[in-house]
């Protein structure tokens, strides 16, 4: 019996399993080369099945048939010029939307088509159910379920291919290629193009693609239309945005088909999440809830952590004096001082930080794990928009709450140089986590049981500052510019203790790494400077240096030079403030840092100190990034500005609160 020959093209998006299908179908009967004049691989092969010899060409993986990439051009040229009898479109059952877009473009070429829906196993596992008979009915083309990796469905795919070949049916476009609003332009273009474009190109497809703004088709039209091009160009100019409707209608069709033929169970979790989010992410309710949650976290942290911190501080001090007493006689006074008062004292102070941090991480860990933390950006963004701020004007500031370094890098989204520089200079005013941690630790030392209120107030002051800065930028530099912020909000779920423990562990670990290196180093240096030359701290070089700052310190309410020096050491790393205070105030088992500091600092002075700490020069890492991103001039400006603003705020706080407090 006579063998029948015909040609088939295999097309699909990258990773859909095309090679797997191709290899199963052709076996060893394949040839690998390159597309003529291209570096892209071309695979062809033969299927000998019953009385048929099917020549199959594996087209390059592609998402659409617009002329944006070489792959897309090769694929569509093959279908148009080589005229395969049938095109097999491989779809990915787990991302049907994307696959369908390619399908819609293939259908537009009006070639007989068959669908192979691959990855059916994964789709099923994910709860995606496809109604094949409905799909075939709606598309008027056969659809075969495939699990190519297990060689399932491929036999049926070949059978269907032959069936379609034998029927020799013309394909019909199952959707309208164009919206009625653009029908006239399309007709006008077709009229101009008719008889002027070479044979293999389908007139309707060519006209649609021209109206859609396809680059290659536009170039070809210019070439082929010659003096008629002007006429076409005028139509195109008038309907410059027609593609929004043309492409948009393809998506509408996809969405409609998917909603009719694909069922994806909505788990209970989604419903619960939606219900919670109605309030939790509401621009005003959400903001209120956020404040309540923040207040709860701080008060809980303090409630549990403070007794432990006190215990730990005395424990560390006891150990410190014990070690000092035991080993003093074996070491030189300088060395034992450096080791026990300097390094141990400084690091011990920071270690006393621990419980506060552990509980803080624990509570934020819960929020993170249940899915609330990722909503904060959303709530804030929404709130800021409601009160008229431009998104770009506060994005870097949000990042700044984590760390100023990414905030400064985050300003890269701002194209305009002046706006960007301004944002960079303002970013360090946002208290990063390290500063917040220092505050979290110092606040109870200064304010006892009111500390959480103070913390909250300070954070509110900062948010207000973000608001003011944002308002200023929105009114000036970003005026008239628009932006939208889209994010994926995770589903809420019950907290998992193990995940939270890992979260706490990871964070504590990185804190220890910092404490073990940079903080101890600075503590050592501070101790040496505070004991050189005579061992009497008041006569040390650090004191004489600190005393030059005293006039300014007095204005801010600082009773002595130690506080100014503690602030200065925060330049290296913010946590150093705590370590330095510990060294300079010589904490002992009987009197912890809280007692020592609160005995020298009045309420207005303590508040002023915290505010200065919060607004002070950013740490070295941030300064380095500012220099990298903005150059020396801006770095210098940033340092001067932070210095000025922090000192001014300190003076203002002390003087004003002092009036009421006296």
């Amino acid at each position, binding site marked *: 019996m006579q063998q029948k020959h015909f040609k088939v093209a295999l097309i699909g998006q990258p990773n859909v399993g095309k090679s797997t299908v191709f290899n199963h179908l052709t076996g060893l009967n394949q040839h690998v080369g390159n597309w003529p004049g291209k570096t892209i691989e071309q695979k062809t092969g033969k299927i000998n099945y019953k009385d048929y010899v099917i020549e199959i060409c594996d087209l390059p993986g592609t998402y659409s048939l617009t002329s944006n990439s070489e792959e897309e051009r090769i694929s569509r040229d093959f279908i148009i010029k080589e005229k395969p009898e049938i095109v097999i479109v491989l779809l990915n059952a787990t991302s049907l939307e994307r696959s369908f877009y390619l399908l819609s473009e293939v259908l537009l070429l009006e070639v007989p088509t068959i669908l192979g829906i691959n990855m059916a196993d994964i789709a099923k596992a994910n709860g995606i159910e496809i109604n094949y008979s409905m799909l075939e009915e709606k598309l008027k083309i056969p659809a075969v379920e495939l699990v190519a990796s297990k060689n399932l469905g491929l036999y049926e795919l070949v059978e269907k291919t032959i069936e379609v070949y034998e029927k020799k049916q013309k394909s019909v476009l199952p959707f309208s290629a164009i919206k009625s609003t653009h029908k006239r332009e399309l007709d006008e273009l077709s009229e101009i193009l008719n008889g002027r474009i070479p044979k293999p190109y389908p007139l309707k497809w060519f006209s649609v693609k021209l109206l859609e703004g396809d680059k290659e088709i536009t170039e070809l039209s210019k070439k082929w239309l010659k003096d008629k091009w002007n006429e076409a160009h005028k139509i195109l100019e008038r309907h410059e945005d027609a593609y929004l409707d043309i492409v948009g209608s393809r998506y509408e069709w996809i969405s409609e088909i998917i909603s009719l033929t694909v069922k994806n169970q909505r788990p209970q979790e989604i419903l619960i999440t939606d219900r919670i989010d109605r309030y939790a992410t509401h621009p005003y309710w959400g903001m209120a809830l956020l404040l309540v949650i923040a207040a709860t976290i701080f008060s809980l942290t303090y409630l549990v952590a403070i007794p432990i911190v006190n215990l730990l501080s005395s424990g560390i001090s006891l150990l410190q004096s014990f070690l000092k007493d035991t080993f003093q006689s074996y070491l030189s006074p300088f060395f034992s001082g450096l080791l026990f008062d300097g390094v141990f004292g400084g690091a011990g102070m920071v270690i006393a930080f621990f419980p506060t941090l552990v509980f803080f991480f624990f509570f934020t860990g819960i929020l993170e794990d249940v899915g609330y933390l990722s909503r904060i950006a959303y709530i804030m963004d929404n709130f800021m928009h409601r009160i008229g701020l431009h998104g770009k004007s506060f994005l870097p500031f*949000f990042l700044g709450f984590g760390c100023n370094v*990414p905030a400064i890098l985050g300003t890269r989204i701002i194209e305009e140089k002046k706006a960007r520089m301004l944002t960079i200079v303002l970013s360090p005013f946002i208290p990063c986590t390290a500063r917040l941690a220092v505050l979290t630790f110092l606040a109870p030392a200064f304010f006892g049981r009111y500390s959480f209120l103070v913390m909250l107030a300070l954070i509110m002051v900062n948010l207000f500052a973000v608001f003011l800065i944002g308002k200023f930028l929105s009114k000036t530099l970003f005026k008239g510019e628009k*932006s939208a912020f889209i994010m994926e909000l995770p589903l809420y779920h019950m907290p998992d203790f193990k995940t939270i423990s890992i979260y706490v562990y990871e964070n504590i670990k990185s804190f220890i790494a910092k404490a073990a290196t940079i903080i101890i180093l600075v503590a050592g240096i501070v101790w040496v400077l505070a004991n050189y030359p005579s061992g009497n701290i008041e006569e040390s070089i650090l004191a004489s240096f600190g005393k030059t700052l005293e006039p300014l310190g007095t204005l801010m309410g600082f009773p002595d030079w130690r506080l100014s020096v503690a602030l200065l050491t925060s330049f290296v790393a913010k946590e150093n403030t705590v370590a330095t205070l510990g060294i300079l105030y010589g904490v002992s088992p009987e009197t912890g840092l809280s007692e020592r500091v609160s005995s020298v600092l009045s309420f207005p002075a303590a508040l002023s100190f915290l505010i200065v700490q919060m607004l002070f020069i950013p740490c070295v890492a941030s300064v380095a990034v500012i220099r990298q991103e903005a150059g020396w001039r801006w770095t210098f400006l940033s340092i001067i500005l932070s210095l000025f603003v922090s000192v001014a705020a300190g003076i203002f706080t002390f003087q004003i609160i002092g009036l009421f407090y006296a």
Partner: protein
Amino acid sequence: MLRKLLEILKEGNALSAREISLSMGVNKEMVALLLEELEKRGLIQSSESHSSLCDKCHLNSACKKGGKRYTF
């Protein structure tokens, strides 16, 4: 459909993928696809608001992890 999404974006708010999908009556995958399309055509520009430095920050999900800003 693309026009509708553009209109929604131009309101300039913070949006969750689910909100958009609800107001457009399509699923989230579709929304992602439409956003890609608008971006490919140069109608919107997106910027990932997350830097690799943020990976170390314990509050990173409170920031902008998973968020994209679109400007026109």
